């Protein structure tokens, strides 16, 4: 689990988040700017992911969300189409 080794490295976390949301929750790949604001598409996608995974919908990368993101999983995206 590479993230364990770089805990606190914000850029790496953001990179992981972007990849995860792109892969499994249909985040548009041209959304490159990660500005954590309530209206950001990233926040909405984090909430969507948290809802799907049965987590509390904080819209933040809290420890339980990060934990699930680091678990091995199936490669079929969780978005339709």
């Amino acid at each position, binding site marked *: 689990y590479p993230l364990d080794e770089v805990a606190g490295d914000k850029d790496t976390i953001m990179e992981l988040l972007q990849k995860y949301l792109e892969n499994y929750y249909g985040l548009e790949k041209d959304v490159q700017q990660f500005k954590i604001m309530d209206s950001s598409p990233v926040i909405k996608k984090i909430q969507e992911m948290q809802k799907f995974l049965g987590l509390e919908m904080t819209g933040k990368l809290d420890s339980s969300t990060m934990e699930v993101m680091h*678990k091995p999983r*199936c490669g079929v995206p969780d978005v*339709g189409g």
Partner: protein
Amino acid sequence: FSTFPGTPKWRKNQVTYRIVNYTQDLSRKAVDSAIEKALKVWEEVTPLTFSRIYEGEADIMVSFAVREHGDFVPFDGPGGVLAHAYAPGPGTNGDAHFDDDEQWTEDTTGTNLFLVAAHELGHSLGLFHSAKPEALMYPVYKPSTNLAGFQLSQDDVDGIQSLYGSPPASSDVPVVPSKPSSPKPGVSAMCDPDLSFDAVSTLRGEILFFKDRHFWRKSLRTPEPGFYSISSFWLSVPSSIDAAYEVISRDTVFIFKGTQFWAIRGHEEQAGYPKSIYTLGLPVTVSKIDAAISDKEKKKTYFFAEDKYWRFDERKRTMEPEFPRKIDEDFPGVGSKVDAAFEAFGFFYFFRGSSQLEFDPNAKKVTHVLKSNSWFNC
């Protein structure tokens, strides 16, 4: 549960599969067995049957690959994505690909092939990801799943049966009702005068009555009990359990089947289980527990097996030395064997067949003779 957009499914009940290649991590026999077992999981709850072919194009082509492997959805090396599979259809559709950069194992020391295959083959049959963490189709791999007594969750069963229906009723195929946890069968069965239970336990102020794959959940606040499948609450807990009891001070319910027991806390299955019943200090001559009661006041747990019982000290966490003793000597009127038991309001309730006995442990006598389902207000 959910299905793929457009709800693709096989339009036939006989589906073919082919194992195209093998991983070096396991023997061919182990891979064959894992895939076969994974298909069986779905076969048992649908009218589908699977036949293996060894050449040509099968409906489901199973293969191991690393990185880019010809479908423009490359694998990512060790960890992360374990496998992916395609919805039913021609060509690549229906196929299941396993990332050979994972360490595939028969147990859970690495990545268990059976568990991942059962999930992927769910996709191959038309199921999409489930949002229920207890479901096999939840997207995150759960190595704590009980492999020996593996069962689909009710959500998985509902999902696959929404596509293919229930298995045909025959003497050879186990019949699984399409919605076993719907209230109707539960309600009608719960008032059956011949109803008996596998086990009964309290859980956080409620009473759970276990029977086969299901349990009734009775809250003293509501007149009507709920009816649920065991696997919809605890995926690793087997069906047809032998005994269960709650240790309130530990907020834990212990569930017994054969020589093993599991620990649950609310919805959570506790890590490190199942354990052997012999770790409790029971002799190896005991092959199963019939019933168990934990006395929360005295902090003692009673284990009943055949015509004897043992007493466990919850404070010292040891079996008391002067046991076993005969049930009918210390619990006069209860008889020599019990099916299930639990403690409530200072009384011990013993179940045998369709009968229930209320026993006062202080007065050492039976105070009421009841029907087993008296708690259901039938």
